């Protein structure tokens, strides 16, 4: 007599219910490749941690679908004529996860605690070391909060909405122990923070009293309808295991799948593959301080030898969108002017190499295997360069070693990804700077630095647009780096999931359904 398979499956399922590793009814089970680093927004974080925690916490403002600043816990704000004072009017009746109603005093407490924290990842955005300094945060009434700066800063709202700043999420004072140390987030987001088993995973639960606003989802702002009871994150570091989990039904969503793996599932009707670019930068950096690469004709020769749309198509398995501009393809500042890109012109390479005085010297391309996109980019670029008569060589490093070389500036060409930058000015700020002051700066040009600083201080969208268009023209002319595409998020959801989509590198679970 054999034990029927269906009975056995039922037995396993009955055991599985309630276990941290597997799904219970109306619970989305989601892969995370590594555990979250902490539950405190903006403190000891990485992109994976942000992606989980931004389902739990919300700030006064949020980044919209195209990077615009949207209201979240604040229903409106005003900026004083001198640009130093920001006055936020809070939404009424917003509940914390412990049932208490949010007040201006709560917001002041939370922001002061975060901005004053020595390990706040965005400390330099608010302490005057990079931009303006927050001089005071005060309540001027039960629903009004005033932030005063030491000088005008057009980027303040943008910084507040940044994911790496934890969206400057507002948490209740009960999130802290009596001694001021962190306990767990009691915030206002659509999910509450549930059990966290370190190294195994965690659970977020639907917040029944969530104060819904807006009429449609809009980035991290807008309407957030929660359609599941819970989201269980399971740490699954191995891709093959995660795909097996998805196929078996043990996992519902794999939010970050390498494009090559996702491409294998694309034609399977049971699964939905979603891919979208975010504000990260997929690049090949030139060390413009290198004797060979400092020559602009040499850099132009490399650009002419590379067919960048083909590289993007190959490394993303047709899922990526080529973009030669530092203004993200999804940004509302990405206009026709930003669509102008590099010209693939192998015929022009010999003349450019001659102008550069190139005599066949070896050019080293650094890359790593942690990012399949970086590795594949280096391999394909090497082949294209070699076929154009450039003696390119690849050196593969472990990621930490490559990051070391990036920070010390010791390379000629490097396949490198920058993390998400929601505003174009931040993307430019990342690569522009004086190499004497910042070894990892790529584009060392004083006029360009001045333009980027202007963009950072400029609030008027039209004037900002003009600056970004000007910067892009200079970028194409000076070719300080090869911009290939924006970072790509590829997620896959299983047959029971409806409504899962990816945005700016984050897995948002409002508006997502799971059918039984």
């Amino acid at each position, binding site marked *: 007599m054999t034990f029927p398979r269906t009975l056995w499956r039922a037995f396993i399922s009955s055991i*599985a219910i309630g276990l941290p590793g597997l799904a219970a009814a109306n619970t989305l089970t989601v892969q995370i490749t590594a555990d979250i680093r902490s539950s405190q927004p903006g403190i000891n974080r990485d992109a994976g941690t942000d992606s989980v925690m931004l389902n739990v916490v919300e700030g006064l403002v949020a980044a919209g679908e195209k990077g615009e600043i949207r209201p979240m816990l604040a229903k409106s704000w005003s900026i004083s004529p001198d640009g130093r004072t920001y006055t936020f009017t809070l939404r009424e009746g917003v509940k914390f996860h412990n049932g208490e109603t949010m007040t201006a005093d709560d917001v002041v407490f939370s922001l002061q605690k975060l901005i004053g924290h020595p390990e706040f990842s965005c400390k330099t955005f608010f302490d005057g070391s990079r931009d303006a300094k927050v001089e005071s945060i005060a309540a001027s009434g039960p629903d009004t909060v005033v932030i005063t700066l030491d000088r005008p800063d057009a980027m303040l709202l943008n910084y507040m909405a940044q994911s790496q700043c934890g969206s400057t999420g507002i948490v209740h004072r009960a999130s802290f122990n009596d001694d001021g140390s962190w306990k767990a987030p009691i915030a206002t987001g659509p999910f509450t923070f549930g059990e966290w088993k370190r190294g195994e995973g965690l659970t977020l639960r639907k917040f029944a009293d969530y104060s819904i606003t807006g009429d449609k989802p809009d980035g991290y702002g807008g309407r957030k309808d929660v359609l599941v009871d819970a989201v269980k994150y399971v740490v699954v570091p*191995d891709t093959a*295991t995660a795909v097996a989990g998805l196929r078996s039904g043990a996992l519902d969503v794999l939010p970050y799948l390498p494009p090559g793996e996702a491409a294998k599932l694309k034609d399977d009707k049971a699964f939905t593959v979603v891919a979208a670019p975010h504000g990260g930068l997929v690049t090949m950096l030139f060390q413009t301080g290198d004797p060979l690469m400092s020559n602009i004709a040499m850099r132009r020769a490399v650009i002419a030898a590379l067919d960048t749309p083909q590289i993007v198509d190959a490394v993303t398995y047709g899922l990526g969108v080529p973009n030669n501009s530092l203004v993200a393809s999804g940004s509302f500042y990405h206009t026709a002017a930003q669509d102008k890109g590099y010209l693939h012109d192998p015929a022009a390479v010999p003349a450019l190499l001659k102008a550069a005085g190139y005599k066949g010297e070896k050019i080293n391309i650094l890359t790593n295997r942690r990012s399949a996109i970086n590795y594949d980019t280096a391999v394909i670029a090497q082949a294209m360069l070699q076929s154009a008569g450039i003696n390119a060589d690849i050196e593969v490093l472990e990621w*930490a070693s490559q990051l*070391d070389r990036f920070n010390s500036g010791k390379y000629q060409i490097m396949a490198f990804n920058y993390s998400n930058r929601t505003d174009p000015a931040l993307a430019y700020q990342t690569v522009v700077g004086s190499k004497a002051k910042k070894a990892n700066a790529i584009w060392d040009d004083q006029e360009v630095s001045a333009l980027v600083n202007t963009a950072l201080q400029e609030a008027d969208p039209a004037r900002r647009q003009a600056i970004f268009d000007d910067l892009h023209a200079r970028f194409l002319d000076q070719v300080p780096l090869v911009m290939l595409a924006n970072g790509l998020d590829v997620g896959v959801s299983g047959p029971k999931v409806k409504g899962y989509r990816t945005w700016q590198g984050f897995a948002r679970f409002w508006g997502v359904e799971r059918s039984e």
Partner: protein
Amino acid sequence: MLKFAFTRLLSAIPTLFIVSVAVFGLIRLIPGDPASLMLGDLADADALAAARKAMGLDQPVPVQFAIWLGNVVQGDLGRSVLNGQPVLDLVWHRFTTSAQMVLIAVGLSVLLAVPLGMAAAWRQNSSLDLAIVAMSTLLLSIPTFWLGLMILLAFGLKLGWLPVLGYVSVADNPISGIIYLVMPVMTLVLHEVGIIVRMARASTLDVLRLDYITHARAKGLSESAVLMRHAARNAFGPTWTLIGLILGNLLGGVAVVETVFTIPGLGRLIVDSIYARDYAVVQGCLLFVALTYLFVNLLVDLLYPLFDPRVTAE
């Protein structure tokens, strides 16, 4: 015996010191800065300097070592820069997770492999011997990550008999815990059986060639009596030593199996911490692994006389 154990424990102190110096030095020789890994590409020079200072990395390496060693002597292995947890708690929690799987796997491997090895030796050059040797060689040759994935695809995905991923501690829920351990344990057992079978067979063959076995046979004892009463215990000695080495090795972490089956064990912690340059955790883990290895081998040496009375724990 107590004197022997005490002497061995004392002799472990210089070993542990050398291990700690080596681990501390080697992890710092690998390129990569924990501060820049933690802060990513957002960091400016000031933020990096502040993070390095907070981690104590702005001090000269000998000073860092002296501070760390001083803390270790007081039982403080530091805190993880990744998640702020005390290293000792982290290591112990992960070790107990790995140990559940490893102890069951090694126990089952011994129960399977020793009789198979002895049977192969007893029937040397027969088809049974050939089959056992061929099987053990095959199992030994298969990489554990591939074997694990095949088991996962067969029993988890194709047949649907076992959960593909997740983990429950046996201490929290014995039935579920065991179900989750079936596939990783099976992977480890199949691999270790190959090793132990070969040792058990070789050592049994050595013993079966000795004069006292010929004498026992000449007395007219049955083959089973010769094997079980006279050969088995003596033949088990070398295998016991090998088991000790395997146990020490596996308790130090089985990163591949833990990664494939999503088990949050010590091996995965070590690998993750090396990639993240989480110095305190790497140092703590490797020191703990060295200590475990020493302890297991001491235990093996103390128990050895039970199998071979000619050897004394003196």
